[in-house]
């Protein structure tokens, strides 16, 4: 260093980095953000917060679980509206090749898609040079057994139970997602130029006599098109509406179920079921959820107890470790 003592070395005069320098421009701003001094909440896990949480979770979950479980078990009483389901097992509606084999545009009534369905529908896209409506594997494999329920009264003449066909599909599906193609007077004309899915007995415009429940907006069809998440599933088939408050919907008695067997399931080891169920505040019968809640609640409570014991027994020894600052 040049020892030009007079001109240099001002640095020596005072602490070179004392605050209050001249060049303000390069000094970083003194904001809480830039200086990482933002006010902050700094929670830490302490016995005071963790243990009560565990107990509270336990105390809340167990009653919920019991509630669900009891409700779920009570569901078998046939009161209120009764829902009739068909169930299939071992049916892989969630298989990828199956799931994507549909054309939502076509189902939404798009006329170009009606006559020229998406490639996703292959190999159920065209049949005999005509586009299939509705195309795809899902539609093709639609459940087409017919179930009828009769009450065998005292007079031994079976009374048919009124099964309501409408109101079984989601509102959005029925009104938004599925629409019949526009055009002609009759449904048949609207589907002109298309052919029925290979496995179907009737074309799509002959699914039901009610025009509001025919074609793509047939509710049985819509329900089927809403693919199940798991290979064992059930789907809503019919509603049995309660007629009056005085009588149970399905009074005690012997019932007779008539099944028109169209749908083969033996080939894939499948099983068909018919389920009659009422519903409660939390939906259909569901023992799992109740048990799960009880289990998790109990575990939480137990953990709380165990942690409490551990905390009281061992904490003193470990926590006295001095902090040397």
């Amino acid at each position, binding site marked *: *260093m*040049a*020892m030009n*003592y*007079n*001109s240099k070395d001002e*640095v*020596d*005069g005072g602490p*070179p*980095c004392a605050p209050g*320098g*001249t060049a303000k421009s*390069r000094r*970083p701003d003194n904001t809480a953000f830039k200086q990482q001094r*933002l006010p902050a909440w*700094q929670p*830490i896990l302490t016995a005071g917060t963790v243990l009560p949480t*565990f107990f509270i*979770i336990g105390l809340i*979950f167990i009653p*919920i679980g019991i509630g*669900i479980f009891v409700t779920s078990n009570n569901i078998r009483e046939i009161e209120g509206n009764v*829902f009739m389901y068909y169930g299939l097992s071992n*049916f*892989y*509606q*969630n298989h*990828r*090749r199956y799931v994507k084999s549909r054309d*939502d545009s076509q189902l939404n009534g798009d006329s170009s898609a009606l006559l020229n369905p998406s490639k996703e529908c292959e190999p159920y896209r065209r049949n005999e040079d005509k586009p299939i409506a509705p195309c795809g*594997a899902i539609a093709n*494999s639609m459940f087409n057994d017919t179930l009828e329920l009769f009450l065998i009264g005292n007079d031994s003449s079976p009374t048919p139970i009124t099964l309501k066909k409408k109101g*079984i599909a989601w509102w959005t599906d029925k009104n*938004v*997602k599925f629409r019949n193609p526009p055009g002609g007077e009759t449904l048949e004309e609207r589907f002109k130029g298309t052919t029925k899915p290979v*496995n179907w007995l009737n074309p799509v415009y002959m699914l039901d006599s009610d025009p509001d429940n025919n074609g793509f907006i047939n509710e049985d069809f819509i329900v089927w098109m809403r693919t199940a*998440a*798991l*290979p*064992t*599933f059930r789907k*809503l088939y019919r509603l049995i509406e309660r007629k009056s408050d005085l009588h149970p919907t399905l009074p005690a008695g012997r019932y007779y179920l008539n099944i028109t067997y169209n749908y*083969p399931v033996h080939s894939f*080891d499948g099983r068909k079921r018919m389920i009659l*169920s009422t*519903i409660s505040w*939390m*939906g*259909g*019968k*569901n023992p*799992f*959820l109740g048990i*799960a809640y009880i289990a998790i609640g109990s575990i939480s409570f137990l953990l709380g107890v165990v942690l409490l014991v551990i*905390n009281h027994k061992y*904490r003193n020894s*470990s*926590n006295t470790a001095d*902090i040397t600052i």
Partner: protein
Amino acid sequence: MFCSKKKSLEVERIVKANDREYNEKFQYTLIPEISSLTWFTTIVPLVLVITMTAVKDATDDYFRHKSDNQVNNRQSEVLIDSKLQNEKWMNVKVGDIIKLENNQFVAADLLLLSSSEPYGLCYIETAELDGETNLKVRHALSVTSELGADISRLARFDGIVVCEAPNNKLDKFAGVLSWKDSKHPLNNEKIILRGCVLRNTSWCFGMVIFAGPDTKLMQNSGKTKFKRTSIDRLMNTLVLWIFGFLVCLGIVLAIGNSVWENQVGDQFRTFLFWNEGEKNFVFSGFLTFWSYIIILNTVVPISLYVSVEVIRLGHSYFINWDRKMYCSGNATPAEARTTTLNEELGQIEYIFSDKTGTLTQNIMTFKRCSINGRIYGEVHDDLDQETEITKKKEPVAVSVKSEVDRTFQFFDHHLMESIKLGDPKVHEFLRILALCHTVMSEENSSGQLIYQVQSPDEGALVTAARNLGFIFKSRTPQTITIEELGTIVTYQLLAFLDFNNIRKRMSVIVRNPEGQIKLYCKGADTILFEKLHPSNGDLLSLTSDHLSEFAGEGLRTLAITYRDLDDKYFREWHKMLEDANTATDKRDEWIAGLYEEIEKDLMLLGATAVEDKLQEGVIETITSLSLANIKIWVLTGDKQETAINIGYACNMLTDDMNEVFVIAGNTAVEVREELRKAKEILFGQNRSFSNGHVGCEKKQQLELDLVVEETVTGDYALIINGHSLAHALESDVKNDLLELACMCKTVVCCRVTPLQKAQVVELVKKHRNAVTLAIGDGANDVSMIKSAHIGVGISGQEGLQAVLASDYSFAQFRYLQRLLLVHGRWSYFRMCKFLCYFFYKNFAFTLVHFWFGFFCGFSAQTVYDQWFITLFNIVYTSLPVLAMGIFDQDVSDQNSIDCPQLYEPGQLNLLFNKHKFFICMLHGIYTSLALFFIPYGTFYNAAGEDGQHIADYQSFAVTMATSLVIVVSVQIALDTSYWTVINHVFIWGSLATYFSILFTMHSNGIFGIFPNQFPFVGSARHCLTQKCIWLVILLTTVASVMPVVAFRFLKVDLYPTLTDQIRRWQKAQKKSRPPSSRRPRARRSSSRRSGYAFAHQEGYGELITSGKNMRAKNPPPTSGLEKTLYNSTSWIENLCKKTTDTVNSFSQDKTVNL
């Protein structure tokens, strides 16, 4: 230029990183048979990631170029077309003639042509190059020095230089200048290297020989390497592992698919057709494998790399913004020049520090003195305790105001009183300071006295004398004029007994106006005390005590002595000296003998203590970093004595140390022997220690040998010099050196070349597998800065070399404490937390597909909506984890500094390693199980509130996606330990965003526009109005989080880490926190024999007595003494010979005929 190269590498890396992992998928996604995801699912994140990376790189590049330009655009005066023109440094070409001015920084290797000083001399400071603080002399060839400042003649200069190719030898140069039909050999003495600073020379002209990367400095700076952090490497390893894991999952599922298609699917053919061209279950399995690879690719998220970069960038900005690392003295904020290394700052184990300019300020101050057995310079307050000198006290000065150097501060009024009372000893003491030196004086334009010194120590002493009333005014070769308390006194200079490293002292023999001949001598106390007159006994012991005290404070000490000489005796001696000077044979020995003879029976006067001023806060910083278990090695080009002195001053060396090993051998054999001995001492003591205390069995003994490193007790230090280091770095001794060095608490390497610095760093880096940091300010530190994991440059000074090569720069060494203990620690902590969470999140997110595979015929059906997969990582969950990665703090910055032990987890790499990664992975797997099987159990045969079935695929997907988002949000909430407003906004905002996007995508409107892209119409509305679904989500969340909370609570409760304790303490303190008390400065109470540390160079004595360095206004030398010098060899030759360590073929230089 280097930077741009580096830049392109950087870009390549990132692209490559993406290449390997993503391009693959990219291609396959477009094949319909196996594309389980739509194109946007992959493309959208990819485009986002690439855009962000590009933006970040562009910004980086811009700032890099900006600082490069700053250097390249510095102006210089270049002789073009017979005119001096301003030109940017970058445009200076080889062969140009350049004019340099005083205090200018040299930016190319120049051949000195002429200078303002007589005989073409010029002075340079080489602190940048070798860390030495004294000035060096360069001189031009006499033929060229005649050119002077004559522009027209310079412009006509057409000499041709033939010289060596660019190389990295700083102390050698060989070449020939051919001009006017004669050849002149060139050597190192005629070359001014890049990195030097011109001093005490108003101007000089030079011809550029090497420029840019060819300069010796740049040749020494080592290769620019692309630096990556250990976390980076670990991350890449983990990514590969995850890929392996991914492939395993793919194989399992593919096999599952083959079996399923064969066993189950085959019977299901009515409903489940084969695709064209794949009617084979093995082939189907093969395709499924690829489908699953695509689906599960989110387990290695694309956003990982870019998120890591964003976090690091954030941390870098916090470093730039930190006011506590801003030096207002030179208006320099800290700067993170590399934005990719931050978390490594939290893992440093070794610091390699330069000395000059880094630890020291390169300023010497006269601190204390002992005169005739009395100490001056201590300040006592009323309680008679030593107090820190504060600015409030008035500095002491006797001299007339104008003569006082304002920067001088000495605070003892007792000394003033003694001077005023006329204590002859005190006067004599100050007189010696004013007379016995090599300082040149000069008056500047305003009439102020300016000292030009080549050694800063002398500068301090002469300035001290000046301020205390003994003002050195001027000198001629025969006289020295000083002003003694107002009276001008001229002394006749009879002889000058110069410094050298063997004598370690210098003397002048003067005749005072009264006619007495006196020998004044100052030098190393160890040497001088042996030459004292026996009558000094009492004073000697007293002064010795004082010297020990000074030395204990890390001051550089010199003893001051005098001797009255008899006229006759001197004349005889002087005669002999003249004879000796004319001798041709063994002249040096003869002269040395004569010096020895006259410098005896000295009378002790006292001692001086000069402080080699440390940078502010160096001691505290080093103490604190040592507490953080960081080892600090000092690597300096300076002398061993000075280095050791600074070691003591910084508290790195103490007297409590069991042993300080000094390795100074000159041959390989000597070095090996010294190392062996040192190791013997080290291990020998330990062995005996352990044997003495533990009557151990054989087995234990063996274990002891194995972990011997751990058992080394006591503090050791190693001091090794450059020559020895060169031998020690040879392959077979290398390990011995390393082993020894790593067991020592302190290592000081002195006299090392820039490349050796890098070699030492490499050695530790390679063999210890430790994270290293190099800090330095000068060009000689560039190589080490580049080779260390992290290079830190001290900015705000002239030379930008170190800063440009560095990854971080700031103005003061002490900021290192904050950089490492606060920023580094936080960065590491945040990065680790971020990575843990990120891997966890992606495992939890992705593995659900794996479980679902078992229930969907291994068909690669995704669980979630395509859009959800696209957005999950980049929209729904990116910001909270980024906020945590950028803002989280476990303990406050003050506590991080107060408790350096908190730094240790980083060094041991405890917060994120393979073990932690497995825990994260298991955590993720567990969560994915809970996420899948709780809804599964519930949906099995479930019905909705309105009786409609809810067990459809879409409801399932919505339930699971919602649970996932909530679970990971709760998890990040648990992980976040520092909830700022931003964290709140991001976490709650992410949840809100999720729900709004969900409802938008499932709305009628958007379905109406794109029916095929948004088939989930109505699902969210339908699903999330069911109590049952919310019960499932609640249950899933609790089940996923509860074990983690329990585990963490137990860990904190039973085995709290230091961090946990401090956090708890911090929380307790928060309400009534006392102002944090600074730790009292550690006072040393050591006593040490002073070492001889003095920055001085031999040869200046001759320069003075010959008068060669004096301006023309001084009368030319005529004395007999001077003539004798001419008779032997030219003084310049002498000077140059002694200034270089290397023996060069200088004697052949016949052109210097003075």
